[in-house]
């Protein structure tokens, strides 16, 4: 089920929220956690709404991982065996559903021998719930004393629908204690307001901004052979915005929905394009993924404790993994490696100059900030391209020196119903003379927004329940709901 659908917003969400508080009101002293069973079952409906068969997969995954921890608890001398069993299952599942097609394509390319295999459909959010459970298994193996969770607590944690298919990657110690907090089982209007506000901001980012930009990008990438400098720049700037609005919009909605149940989810984005270095970018972009790799890969590999060379190597390695996590394609791997390489170079320069010269001076800071933004824009195009060849052609066309944006690119903006209404007021004449006028204006406004405005987290922190915030919420919700029907799917569902 999509957050940006009428059935979710008008049917599913109210039923789950009202049901949750009703159950807690009626059964607040029961030994059976009906509220968590309710959340678990409703999360399964959410997950299996489009493809019910995948419910079996997530249930199997939850049961298997939970059983592994029970076995670790029971056979304390064989903890490692059950850890490995759990990890093999998780990574096996991930490999089969996410990487098998890619693996076979590469075997075919290398050996020229073709084995017929069935194309495997990628289940929603498999990377997210797999990583979440891997973290639980590893933590349990390290220290199980504080982690005696019941099955329903564990199942409700993994399947908790706001974060299930596109993150943030929540850790068990963040959510399960909140499930147990009796104060959180009662309606809290402050949180309902905050949740609704955050949800409306996220929904608007996704539906009004990301989905509009996605149409521009789709045309640019479909007709990449005809692109030129002007078109390439527009497409690149649009995609950088699209992926941010799309993914952070989803996370805002997840955080907002969780707030309706009085739960707090970790922040996943903190104005990433305001970053001054690539290192800072990764402290602002998809924070819970960076956190996961730091805790479960970087530190076990030695982190920064085993000398500079090893630190650089470890840094590069986790970005290579991050690339692979994002998708089964050489484009994602190259994207990850490129970020890893630049992170490593930044670390080296910082080590060599002891943080004084390059990043210390204002002028260098400014220049470097621009370079980081350029780098991020270009690297997103590797991420977006279907293959490295397409990326190469895209960049070649980008350098051809022709600045006229090709005619179809502004269409998704010019044909938007909102702009067609404006056209009746006279704006139509401008687009007749400068077809890209609205598109460029739209991009500039979006860029000003991401570089200068407060992000959702900051807005939530300064939220006060007055008529202004109410009006913003009403307008964004209604406008977004009326824009649902021509919206696409969330980009991060397939990662």
């Amino acid at each position, binding site marked *: 089920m999509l957050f940006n*659908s*009428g*059935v979710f917003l008008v049917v599913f969400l109210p039923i789950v929220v009202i049901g949750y508080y009703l159950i807690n009101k009626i059964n607040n002293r029961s030994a059976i956690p009906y509220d968590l069973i309710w959340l678990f079952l409703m999360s399964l409906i959410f997950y299996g709404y489009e493809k019910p068969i995948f419910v079996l997969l997530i249930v199997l995954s939850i049961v298997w991982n939970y059983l592994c921890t029970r076995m670790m608890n029971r056979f304390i001398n064989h903890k490692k065996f059950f850890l490995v069993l759990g990890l093999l299952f998780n990574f096996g599942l991930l490999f089969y559903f996410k990487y098998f097609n890619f693996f076979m394509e590469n075997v075919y390319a290398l050996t020229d021998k073709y084995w017929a295999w069935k194309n495997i459909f990628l289940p929603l959010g498999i990377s997210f719930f797999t990583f979440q459970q891997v973290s639980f298994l590893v933590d349990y193996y390290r220290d199980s004393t504080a982690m005696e969770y019941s099955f329903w607590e564990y199942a409700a944690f993994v399947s908790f629908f706001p974060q299930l298919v596109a993150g943030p990657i929540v850790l068990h110690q963040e959510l399960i204690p909140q499930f147990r907090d009796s104060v959180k089982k009662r309606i809290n*209007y402050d949180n309902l307001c905050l949740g609704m506000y955050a949800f409306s901001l996220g929904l608007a980012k996704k539906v009004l901004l990301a989905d509009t930009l996605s149409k521009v990008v789709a045309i640019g990438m479909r007709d990449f052979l005809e692109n030129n400098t002007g078109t390439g720049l527009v497409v690149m700037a649009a995609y950088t915005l699209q992926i941010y609005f799309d993914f952070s919009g989803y996370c805002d909605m997840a955080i907002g929905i969780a707030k309706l149940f009085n739960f707090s989810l970790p922040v996943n984005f903190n104005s990433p394009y305001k970053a001054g270095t690539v290192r800072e970018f990764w402290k602002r972009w998809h924070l819970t993924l960076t956190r996961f790799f730091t805790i479960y890969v970087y530190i076990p590999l030695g982190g920064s404790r085993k000398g500079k060379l090893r630190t650089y190597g470890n840094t590069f390695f986790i970005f290579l993994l991050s690339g692979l996590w994002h998708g089964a394609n050489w484009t994602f791997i190259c994207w990850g490696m490129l970020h890893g390489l630049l992170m490593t170079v930044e670390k080296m320069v910082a080590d060599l100059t002891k943080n004084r010269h390059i990043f210390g001076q204002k002028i260098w800071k400014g220049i470097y900030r621009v370079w980081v933004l350029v780098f991020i824009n270009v690297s997103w195009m590797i991420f977006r391209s279907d293959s490295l060849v397409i990326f190469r052609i895209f960049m070649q066309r980008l350098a051809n020196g022709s600045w006229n944006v090709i005619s179809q690119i502004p269409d998704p903006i010019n044909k938007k119903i909102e702009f067609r209404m404006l056209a009746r007021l006279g704006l139509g004449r401008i687009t007749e003379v400068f077809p890209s006028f609205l598109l460029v204006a739209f991009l500039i406004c979006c860029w000003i927004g991401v570089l200068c405005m407060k992000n959702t987290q900051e807005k939530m922190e300064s939220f006060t*329940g007055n*008529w202004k915030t109410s009006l913003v919420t009403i307008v964004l919700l209604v406008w977004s*709901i*009326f824009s649902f029907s*021509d919206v696409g799917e969330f980009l991060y569902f397939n990662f």
Partner: protein
Amino acid sequence: MKSKKWFAGTIGAVLSILFLIGLPMIIIDPYFHFHGPIPGFSYRLYSERYMNDGIVRHFDYDAIITGSSMNQNFKTSTMDSLFGTNSIKVPFSGAGFQEISNLLERALSTNPDIKYVLWGIDYNGFNREYDWAGYDDYPDYLYDDNPLNDFAYIWNKTILYEALITDVIYTLKGNETTTFDEYSSWEVGGGWDQIRKTYYRSDEVLPMEPGLSEGAKERVQTNIGENIVKLVKKYPNTQFLFFYTPYSALYWESLTRDGTFWKQLEAEKLTTEMLLDCPNVSLYSFAQMTDITGNVMNYRDKEHYVAAINEKILHWIADGEGLVTKENYEELLQWELEYYTDYDYDELYTTYVP
């Protein structure tokens, strides 16, 4: 403002707006998703993929004209006067066979007493995959019976602006509901001025490919079997009037130049045999109307004929002209092979001005 008040006020306002806009959308129902036209209100029929499903489920009719853009210029008034029917026209631009078949299934399952289905089968569609579709972003929510996705219809800014508000203004201005003669029709003159906008004569002449492979034959059979024969057999009381869309000689020339002419004829043979096996099918071909196909003035591109030809087609069918039977179809195919192989295509270009 207290948070309880803020929450109640905000959610109350959102729900009120949704209700106040959703209600007239359901009452007027500009795409006929819930019911037919309401008396006294005038509707603009203009958006095939959004309206055809509602039309076939909620209008009163006993005959259907459908197909791709080759059928958009038919006049239901002519059909009705020739066949004594009360017909509707529900074509789709750039339609695939599956799309048309799905629509007809919706129509016939709702209204099994339909007397005639007139479907101009795209002559270039035989060799496509059975589920070929030439469009994105299909409004699936209008084509199923799931009420949970109808929100996409009743709360939709495009439909609100383009259909509901515009139809209200349209009605207030005293206009009448669009007729099926007008719906989807386009009036563009034929001739080279039009054709050369999209047509390009390839300099290269590729060697003629042999007939269809086993896989290709299977594809044609699946395409026709799944999309047409299955439907025809399911509704034996309906008479299906099929015709192969009479493309211009320029189309036939393109087949001879790109080497697919023999393949096309073989696909036509397979299709014809499958259709003629159905007792409730009458199949027509107008390829032998060479005064039509050989005159560029009848076409706006190498395939699309002008509106006057649609009128002729209705009269030909009513008169039984061009009827393909089990007895004559092989003769027709042989004639097509010989005629369009020996055709002097250069003659078509005598009035061409680049």
